[in-house]
């Protein structure tokens, strides 16, 4: 029996930004249904890593494989495979919630009937039905995050990339987000979640990876690791630049 192909494999990817190495020789892999928490202080390289995974930024070096295929050779894989919520959920302020979903659906190549079905289901799932005719420009930050998440989930991606999705959400919305992430993962979607919140990671993730100065310093399963142990590891890396990469 052959092992299942990982949804995402990063092999030695590196990227310079503003003249300094933002990500250096990063190796990661993620299987279907797995939730990976990506931790790191500001400037650790989390957003750069996620932008490369989402196809918005090209690595200087290394390889990204999606479902075993070379993503850099075939960037069009992003259309069906990846759903991405960038930091601060950028939106077109003059378009309504429903127009956002329709535009994203068309850009992802959904046919009309499938688009209508996916749009209505996603609006309901993200509790956006009541806001569907509202302009994105007048939404609160929490509502914007939900709309961004809806756009990322619309086409049922195999890999969901979330860059600080809990930003500006109230505690009730954070709880709903955690439930949603677990549901999506249970449906077989691999999720990579960048966050500053250690509690977020222990609550929803199966694995945690810690980046520091663009390098992977820690990669381990969450199971059996308490919040305090994770906090200790994180602060050791963040404050003292500790290493000690562990096998997942």
């Amino acid at each position, binding site marked *: 029996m052959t092992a299942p192909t990982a949804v995402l494999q990063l092999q030695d990817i590196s*990227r310079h*930004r503003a003249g300094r190495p933002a990500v250096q020789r990063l190796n990661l892999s993620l299987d279907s249904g797995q939730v990976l928490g990506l931790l790191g202080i500001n400037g650790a390289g989390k957003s*750069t890593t996620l*932008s490369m995974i*989402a*196809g*918005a*930024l*090209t690595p200087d070096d290394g390889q990204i494989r999606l479902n075993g295929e070379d993503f850099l050779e075939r*960037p*069009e*894989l*992003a*259309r069906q495979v*990846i759903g*991405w919520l*960038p930091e*601060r959920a*950028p*939106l*077109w*302020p*003059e*378009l309504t919630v429903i*127009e956002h979903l329709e*535009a*994203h659906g*068309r*850009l*992802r*190549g959904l046919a009309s009937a499938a688009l209508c079905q996916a749009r209505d289901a996603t609006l309901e799932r993200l509790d956006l039905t009541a806001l569907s005719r509202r302009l994105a420009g007048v939404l609160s930050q929490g509502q914007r995050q939900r709309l961004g998440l809806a756009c990322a989930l619309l086409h049922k991606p195999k890999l969901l990339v979330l860059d600080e999705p809990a930003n500006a959400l109230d505690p009730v919305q954070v709880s709903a987000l955690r439930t949603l992430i677990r549901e999506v993962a249970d449906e077989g979607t691999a999720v990579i979640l960048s966050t500053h919140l250690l509690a977020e990671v222990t609550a929803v993730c199966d694995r945690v990876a810690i980046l520091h100065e663009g390098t992977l310093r820690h990669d381990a399963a969450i199971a059996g690791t308490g919040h305090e142990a994770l906090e200790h590891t994180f602060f050791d890396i963040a404050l003292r630049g500790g290493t000690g990469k562990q096998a997942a």
Partner: protein
Amino acid sequence: MSVLAVTRLELRRLFVRPLAWVLAALTLAELAWRFVLLLGAFLANQIKLGASPSGPGYTDLVAVPMLSSLLTGGLIPFGLIEMALVIVPLLTMASLAGERTQGTLPLLFGTGLPAWQIVLGKYFALLLWLLLWLLLAIAMPLSIAHGVHLDAGKLAAAMLGTLLVLAALAAIGVACSAFSSHPAIAGAASLMIGLALICVNSGAQLAGINNGAINWLALSTHLETLLRGIVSTADLMWFVLVVVFALALATRRLAADKERG
């Protein structure tokens, strides 16, 4: 299909923003006023014009001058093309620079679309808006075509020339927007390039040079023949070259965005 998706998105954004509507309303009102003045002058000179059967008619004195004052100067200095020098940069300035400012450009990259599809999608949307604008403007002189003698061939050539100018200005606008982080800078650059292309040969013409390379560079040289009703492949190719060159530059710059981050 992907180009069409970008075109639909851009058209939707154009039509829900007030800018496009306000520009269309104001410019069409100005053109309507221009039409009334041109028609009034044409009617007032009927006796004089009737004396020379081979002289200029409705097409030369009303329909074509609606599009440009390049040949006629005349009553009101600004025809549709002269207005387009300002209108097109206003419409195109935010097409890519705005996406960059709002942070939505990575979203488009994240859908796996190559840069050329994003550029073409946006360009086609702008072109459709400009085509609609041109059709609404030309509907004014055409509305009384049944009562006058209209030179359909000459008007068609002038419309083709106008459409090509709009296409070239839109391509230049999209390119400027691709190269700029701020829509206002893109708009100003696009306006300056458009003006430069119109009058780059003014100095040479004043010096009596009419066949130099600098005249070939000028947009007005190629537009003038089309406005006179003469369609030449060389002129058409000039416009095609400008459009392809500008869109290729825009694509290259956008692709570099993804590389540079």
